[in-house]
């Protein structure tokens, strides 16, 4: 794939979609607790789905906020399935009991991700500021398995779990999870405020990824995924066949509850609105998106031997710390 991505792709492959910023939790790392935004009604959400389907975007992933807080979640999902979309969501699991799992199955979800930050119940509950949340999250995984829904586990790597992430993998195995996402820490919203307590130093990130990449290579019974382009310089890094650097604005876009589009959930730059603007105009001509697709090496990235793969690392993190989309990722250890 040598052609520029906007020529390659006529639309993103995924819309990450916050239907609502409402949540029954207030987690320490969350990007969206301070976000405020109007929510759309069911009819408008269906209109958005029509547009997404018309542009042949194959995947939508509901996040937020807690998607299960929306009463019309299953109606929306069933509608999206009818339009040929593949639907998944990320949930904290609190509301995901057996009955909800059956509805998830019936409405046609392709998979559901449950956020679990530590295999130690007390640590998870503390991080999520909600006693009992670990048990409910684990019960949600079991309910999904019982209902025959593919489950994944999402864990944001931070100071509370970077040394014990193998326990998270074991937990995933015990609860029939098929894939574990070890997410990079994003420094947006509360994640930015709490980063002194939660974020790792660049050297700690390097140490974590060196081990985690090796574990990934040795693990055959579980898919382990990372979403951090800054690992491009490490042994065991598998070249992403779909994209170099951050995938935001190239493979995926983010939808806010009012239909505003941002490059990703962690970059609060609105590039247009899916209901009121011409989507193709946004996709091909948004200055912000084009800037993200054509980053220029700055600072220490200039002359870096892995720039071609890393492209300065996570654009959201660079933007959150310096306000410049092209600056080097603050997690970079080079």
């Amino acid at each position: 794939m040598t052609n520029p991505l906007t020529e390659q792709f006529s639309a993103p492959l995924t819309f990450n979609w916050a239907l609502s910023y409402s949540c029954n939790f207030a987690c320490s790392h969350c990007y969206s607790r301070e976000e405020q935004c109007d929510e759309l009604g069911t009819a408008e959400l269906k209109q958005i789905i029509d547009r997404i389907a018309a542009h042949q975007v194959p995947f939508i992933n509901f996040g937020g906020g807690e998607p299960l807080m929306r009463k019309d979640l299953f109606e929306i999902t069933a509608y999206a399935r009818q339009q040929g979309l593949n639907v998944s969501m990320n949930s904290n699991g609190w509301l995901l009991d057996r009955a909800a799992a059956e509805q998830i199955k019936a409405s046609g979800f392709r998979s559901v991700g449950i956020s679990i930050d530590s295999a130690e119940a007390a640590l998870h509950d503390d991080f999520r500021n909600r006693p009992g949340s670990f048990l409910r999250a684990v019960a949600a995984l079991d309910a999904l398995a019982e209902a025959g829904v593919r489950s994944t586990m999402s864990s944001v790597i931070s100071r509370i779990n970077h040394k014990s992430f193998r326990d998270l993998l074991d937990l995933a195995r015990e609860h029939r999870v098929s894939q574990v996402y070890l997410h990079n820490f994003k420094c947006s919203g509360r994640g930015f405020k709490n980063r002194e307590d939660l974020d790792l130093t660049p050297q700690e990130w390097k140490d974590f990824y060196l081990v985690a990449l090796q574990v990934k290579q040795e693990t055959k019974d579980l898919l382990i995924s990372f979403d951090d382009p800054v690992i491009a310089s490490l042994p065991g890094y598998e070249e992403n066949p779909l994209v170099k650097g951050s995938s935001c604005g190239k493979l995926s876009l983010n939808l806010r509850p009012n239909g505003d589009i941002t490059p990703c959930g962690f970059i609060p730059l609105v590039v247009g609105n899916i209901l009121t603007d011409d989507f193709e105009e946004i996709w091909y001509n948004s200055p912000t998106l084009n800037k993200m697709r054509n980053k220029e090496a700055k600072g220490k990235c200039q002359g870096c031997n892995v720039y071609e793969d890393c492209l300065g690392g996570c654009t959201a993190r660079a933007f959150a710390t310096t306000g410049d989309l092209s600056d080097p990722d603050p997690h970079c250890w080079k």
Partner: protein
Amino acid sequence: MKRLQRNPDIVWRVEKRRQQAVIDRLAAGEESGDEGTVILLISGMMHQLNLLGGMIWAQCDGSRTLAQIVTQLQAEFDVETALLQADVQEFIDDLIERGWLSYDQSTD
């Protein structure tokens, strides 16, 4: 009747702008190259089909036989039938072997 059917687990789409660019180049008598005009997403990997492959793929919706697909393509491409038939057969055999296509054996 053996109709060709795409594997329903494969997520795919036509890259419309690219497809149009290739069609325009062909119409202008230029080489079209092997540029992908249809993308397939299979187990997290992306595969691309060129213009002819993409057109065949798009028609394998369970309603057409190989012969019907060849007839359809004949209208689009100015190629000898036997040659087109052989190309389509080879392409389809390959995709069947990969598990991306199958013959729907139901009778009508």
